[in-house]
């Protein structure tokens, strides 16, 4: 028995859980190693950044700093270890990014050639038999 019917149900459930569980303490933002790269985040309080991320997660725009933080999340997971409420801020930021991509708040990464590139490298590096068996 799986926990969720599909990714949409999982996202909905996790989004509701995160919004309810997060106390906006800002600890996740304070420890994030990528914060120096987050455009617009300098000088914004950690609590405000988190509030902005939750706003994006809910379909809003958030602040510039929150959007900058979401954009540079590299899933270090340092936030998860620091979170006192076991919110899973790493997932919070990832889901916020998906939501932002869908609402247009953040641009989508151009992955249009990703799979064509994967195949081109396979043709270069795999034997014909390996291509048949491994792909």
């Amino acid at each position, binding site marked *: 028995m*799986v926990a969720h019917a599909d990714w949409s149900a999982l996202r909905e459930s996790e989004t509701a859980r995160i919004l309810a569980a997060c106390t906006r303490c800002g600890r996740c933002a304070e420890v994030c190693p*990528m914060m120096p790269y987050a455009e617009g985040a300098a000088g914004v309080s950690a609590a405000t950044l988190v509030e902005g991320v939750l706003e994006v997660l809910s379909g809003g725009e958030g602040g510039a700093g929150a959007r900058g933080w979401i954009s540079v999340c590299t899933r270090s997971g340092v936030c998860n270890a620091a979170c006192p409420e076991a919110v899973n801020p790493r997932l919070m930021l990832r889901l916020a990014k998906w939501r932002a991509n869908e609402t247009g708040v953040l641009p989508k*990464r151009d992955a249009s050639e990703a799979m064509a590139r*994967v195949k081109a490298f*396979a*043709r270069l590096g795999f034997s014909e038999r390996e291509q048949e068996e*491994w792909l």
Partner: protein
Amino acid sequence: MTEALFWYGCNMTRHGEIIRLAARMLEAVGVGAAPVGGPGACCGSPKESTPRIAEGMANRTMEKFGKWASGVRSAEGGAAKGGEHRSRESAAAPKGPPSVITWCPSCHMNLDDFMGRTKEKGFDHRHLSEALWERRAALAPLLTKRVATRFLVDRHMGFHAEVPVNHIIPALLGMIPGAEHVDHGHRGGSYMCFGLANVPGALGAHQRALLAAMHETGADTLVTIFHSCHRELVGLERDHGIRVVNWVHLLAESMGWDYSDDYKQWRNAEDPLAAIGPERLAAAGEAAVRKLVLPELTRPRPV
């Protein structure tokens, strides 16, 4: 032999020799694992800015793995009854659930966080490093060649909570005669270099920190854990007087196995197309290579 899949992911097609070496290594320690990956076995991660597409790709992969796992269980059932479906692998040694052995941390985490929470798994999964560590008693006697090196491992903050790679990889390589791990506190602020490469300034900062750590510790070799790190760090070999290898390469060297790191050669060649060679270029399609591969091989180096 244990029936298993070696799920190498999609971007590992750049490093065919690592796939070959890993599968051979698993077999050498008693795990028969068939490599599978590419667009047909994708976790969805490359397309996750459109979650609906990512989900579709991930679901297809789960269906593929589910059919495979069901086939393994049927074969084992047949074997238990002395039936004709008994496979070479299932005729031997202890059975557990069918196992998927992962390489890519994105795939591994997607399996944990999304795929396995929305589709029945029917198999267990572990990372390659865990599979080899579990079988280290069988691996150790195979590491017969001395590899004289002081190596630093490119470690990252992420993924370690899921699979303790930052401990396992140095421990595995520490079994190699002559190889000395030099510890250092630097950790990349990501789970592999891919994430850093997409943030202006971040990959360069990470590379400078690694080079400084190597200088500080007297390391001569930088060991990468994941494919995207290898992809981003092999370029350092050309200009910085260090050696860059993947951890699987180093184990293979100690096992006396030959390999060719083509990606590194292409990346560091003055003329990558000449390094690829006309025969492979023709087989892969020159137009596609020029459009899709060449820009990557000639991209600017952060340091």
